[in-house]
């Protein structure tokens, strides 16, 4: 299981083994990681699982689809070039060592 590190806005870091195929959001929620709310349950409907992905990992992520793009526009914290919705990131072996930062607020 790839290890994914979640770093909160105030610097708290948690590293979790996330099963292949689960989303980066599910890895957080199932392990009580603060900073990811996932109000809609991972259906790309709410933008409360917004994360900033460390730049060097951006190339391994699947491209942003239209629905994720539309949702990101409504995120509560500023959208940046490395913004993603973590529910739209299914974990593959290439995610080993992935680091994401959670934004100051999701709502």
């Amino acid at each position, binding site marked *: 299981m790839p290890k994914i590190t979640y770093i909160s806005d105030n610097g708290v870091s948690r590293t979790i083994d996330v099963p292949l195929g689960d989303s980066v959001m599910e890895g957080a929620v199932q392990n*009580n990681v603060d900073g990811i709310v996932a109000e809609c349950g991972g259906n790309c409907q709410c933008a409360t699982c917004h994360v900033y992905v460390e730049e060097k990992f951006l190339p391994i992520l699947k491209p942003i689809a239209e629905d994720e793009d539309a949702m990101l526009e*409504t995120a509560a914290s500023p959208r940046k070039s490395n913004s993603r919705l973590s529910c739209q990131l299914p974990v593959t072996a290439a995610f080993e060592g992935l680091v994401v930062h959670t934004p100051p607020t999701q709502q």
Partner: protein
Amino acid sequence: MGVVIIGGGQGGFQVAASLRTEGYEESITLIGDEPHVPYQRPPLSKGFLLGKQEQRHAELRPAAFYEAQRITLVTARATTIDREARRVALDSGEHIEYNTLVLATGARNRLLPHGNVLYLRTLAEATDIRQRLAAAQDVIVIGGGFIGLEVAAAARTLGKQVTVIEGLRRLMARVVAPIVSEYFRSQHEAKGVDILLNATLQGISEKEVLLGERIRRPADLVIAGIGVVPNVELAHEAGLPVGNGITVNEYLQTPDERIYAIGDCAESPNSYAGVLCRLESVQNAVDQAACVAKAIVGHPAPYGAVPWFWTDQYDIHLQMAGLPAGFDQVVTRGDPQTRKFSVFYFRGGRLCAVDSINRPADHMAARKLIGTRATVSPDQAKDESFDLKGWSGL
């Protein structure tokens, strides 16, 4: 004491979670009658049936969350509310006292007067249907609404022969315009699903379904999705007013100021409908829960979130914003032939709802436009060169 929440669905869960986010320090007890931690239902008729998602994906939070947040989960059915004593009785014989009570009792499936038919609402029901689907060949779905069509899409994707039986003359007739109904009919038929409209169900036997005059359809699995009935009995027996749901004011409060009701079980004043309204959706449950949590910690505000809904069938993603009830004009933005278009509903010249098919940016703009009561004309809505997103202020 503290807050007691009856109903362990999405709304009940969200009240508990939001209370802690809002800094509520007293005890929180969440009473649910299913033997699981709270889970979300939307995947049950979609990815779960297809085997793409499992129970743990549907669970809203792991058990450890409730311990960490000091939320006590009680698996039981609440049997009575004693408002004088501020006490809820459970079928286990226990009593739980409350300062504030939140009714998030949800709804239950409407049932047919026939046997040999399955229904889908709970994880247990979805698990049973998933197992039976594996062995089934001919699947009949009764009801051409969201749940029925999602089940039909899943069964067809799994290679089953699927027939949808709908009593009205079009699909999802209660919630979408004819053009959207027609689009979904054509898409299901293109996938090989048989859609029977204006159909009258006469009987269901172990191996077939009888329709109208001597029309028989083979069936080794019959699943009905014909709407729900709100769970209002507990409130009614406690002397609280009940209409098409537990009646609450704009603060989602019953006439007993210590008791709130939210989600599928409650009818509340809705400024988008102009009347008392009971909505069945994740959005409504979650937003009403957050509204009540704020009220409980001393920041009451009238509930006024824009209603939105979604359904996924095959690769068609339909997102709905607003309430189309009473619409008198419809315009289309985009060409249905491209498989991406939005339908704008107007009531007395004002935009009241938008259905977007694989056009998520339209949907997000629509939520904003409807929420801010922005003025959009039918001509602007259908003109693709008109900057909808810019106009919405997103």
